[in-house]
């Protein structure tokens, strides 16, 4: 039979029972749409992460305690916290490829002041911190290095904190109590938006590092050191230099491994992208399962169709159709059904992506490759799940098929 005739017969029998065909195709429609949308959400999330990391300031270098992942026996990330203010001072004194360095001392707790109280994190930083992160002030001013050395109890509020504690009046000059230690507010940060991990850079209080270290965090070590390179191009040299200084500061001999990790934004971006890639694969796989379930639906309905059309198969065999003609006929029907489902599924996914992009904060990014992939997968499922019923049809005995009532 000509391809044209095979397709004609296939469409005819699919259109003969529209409702049934639609319901069967629905399994594939939903499966394909799920795969495309899930992967699109994964890709969208990945792109959001990338954009945010790019917006963090590309010069940023972060030194965290713990050994790097390269070889040897790992003592575990952060298991050996040895950063001190001396380390920070040494970097400040010796490094030439950097234009700012700040320790990061983390604390947090209930903040009382203004109209009520608020739970948030407090970061103890140096006077360079604002420039390192390229953050901006909405009002007031940042503290100086002298304030840091003098353990001044001053602080700056993130926009979120300011909004919640001082909704009506200017917070500058007022006091907040952080874990019962009074701090004077000297400035408010400009709004920055969400971070890649979902926490807000606006729900934050900045205070001099030594003040936080001694009055709030109870003398714990510095959790990380934040440095900004002179230019993005100088990042590799700055990292090199920082490594040398840190090894000296920690008195590491030859052959001893680093007890710290130095990462720039590219490294962070890579790690974050890796995470969202895994997310994409996971989401896509779950959606893929629904596509397979759709395939089973096709197999089911094709088996019913073969039984219903036993007599027709007998007629075709008796007038000279080969077994292969019957096989191809039924296989074509299954593939037409699944590919039609594939087309409708892709269209549906465009609709869902449009809604997500325009009415939710979730970005969905449909790549052309994923459309072809989902489409190809739908076709493959048609062949795979259509084969068994088609083979069953082709192996019917013409006499029995003709007598079938």
């Amino acid at each position: 039979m000509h391809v044209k005739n095979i397709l004609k017969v296939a469409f005819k029998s699919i259109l003969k029972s529209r409702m049934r065909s639609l319901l069967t195709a629905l399994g594939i429609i939903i499966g394909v749409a799920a795969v495309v949308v899930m992967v699109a959400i994964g890709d969208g999330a990945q792109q959001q992460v990338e954009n945010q990391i790019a917006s963090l300031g590309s010069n940023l270098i972060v030194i965290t305690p713990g050994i790097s992942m390269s070889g040897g026996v790992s003592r575990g990330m952060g298991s050996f916290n040895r950063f001190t203010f001396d380390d920070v001072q040494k970097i400040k004194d010796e490094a030439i490829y950097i234009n700012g360095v700040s320790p990061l001392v983390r604390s947090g707790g209930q903040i009382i002041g203004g109209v009520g109280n608020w739970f948030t994190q407090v970061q103890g930083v140096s006077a360079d911190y604002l420039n390192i992160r390229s953050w901006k002030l909405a009002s007031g001013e940042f503290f100086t290095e002298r304030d840091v050395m003098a353990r001044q109890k001053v602080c700056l509020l993130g926009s979120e904190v300011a909004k919640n504690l001082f909704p009506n009046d200017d917070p500058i000059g007022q006091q907040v109590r952080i874990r019962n230690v009074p701090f004077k507010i000297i400035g408010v940060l400009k709004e920055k938006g969400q971070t890649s991990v979902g926490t807000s850079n606006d729900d934050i209080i900045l205070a001099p590092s030594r003040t936080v270290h001694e009055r709030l965090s109870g003398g714990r070590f510095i959790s990380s050191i934040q440095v900004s390179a002179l230019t993005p191009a100088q990042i590799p040299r700055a990292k090199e230099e920082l490594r040398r200084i840190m090894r000296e500061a920690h008195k590491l001999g030859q052959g001893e491994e680093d007890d710290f990790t130095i990462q720039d934004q590219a490294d962070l971006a890579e790690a974050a992208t890796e995470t969202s890639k895994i997310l994409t694969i996971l989401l896509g796989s779950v959606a893929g399962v629904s596509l397979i379930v759709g395939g089973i639906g096709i197999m089911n309905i094709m088996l019913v169709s073969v039984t219903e059309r036993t007599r027709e198969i007998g007629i075709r065999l008796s007038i000279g159709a080969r077994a292969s003609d019957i096989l191809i006929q039924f296989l074509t029907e299954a593939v037409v059904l699944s590919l039609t489902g594939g087309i409708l599924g892709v269209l549906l996914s465009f609709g869902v992506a449009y809604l997500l992009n325009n009415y939710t904060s979730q970005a969905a990014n449909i790549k052309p490759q994923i459309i072809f992939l989902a489409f190809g997968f739908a076709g493959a499922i048609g062949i795979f799940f259509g084969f068994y019923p088609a083979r069953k049809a082709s192996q019917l005995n013409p006499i029995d098929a003709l007598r079938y009532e």
Partner: protein
Amino acid sequence: MAEDFKEDVLEKNIIKTSALTKIYKVGEVEVPALREVDLNINEGEFVAIMGASGSGKSTLMNLLGCLDKPTSGDYFLDEYNTSKLTPNEYAAIRNQKIGFVFQGFNLLPRTTALENVELPLMYDRTHRIKNPIEKAIQSLERVGLGDRMHHVPNQLSGGQMQRVAIARALVNEPSIILADEPTGNLDSRTSVEVFSVFQELNEEGITIILVTHERDFAMFAKRIVELKDGRIIKDAMIKNRLNAKEELKKIKEEIETQEHGVN
């Protein structure tokens, strides 16, 4: 001598079976349906195969139609020894050498008469017939259905459906037409109409094998082969053969006289 030669050409064997046997296995029991049947049919014959149910006539029909393979024995159709053919060659034989007409018409539903008739040509890989649609139309016109080409089976009467089936059997110019109880589902007048089509085709030289259990209809053929318990018990030419056209005329006259009687 010259006459003998002529006879030879005319009486070309189209079907020749030797010791054709079919045994069905029902569980452990072997049921012989056909026992060593020798049957020769010449080109241009009109043979009625008769017998009670269980006599093996349907089995013989299936074997002659290449729908089934014999357990033993040979079956030559034209020059082919069918027992040596592959399944695909079997399909090709069914397609090109045999035209089937079934009791239940066996037309594809929701498919027009023309498309039904065209169907065998679609499975013809040799593409002997250059213009399938034209050929299908010719075939339909030959059975007097030129005006019903685009009707689907459920818009046609039983007689018309069977004529579509005959047109379908004819379209590939087969060596034989096998008709299995072709009028089993039809009333007697329509049956006679269908037989008049068969007789016409036979007069044009087409070989027809008819399977029936009704002696009245067998009388339209030229030769009767009677089966019993899987063996041929009688094989004879019909002496007082019926002419379907004349029978049809008689039926019409009867109806007319009845109507006159009422009036």
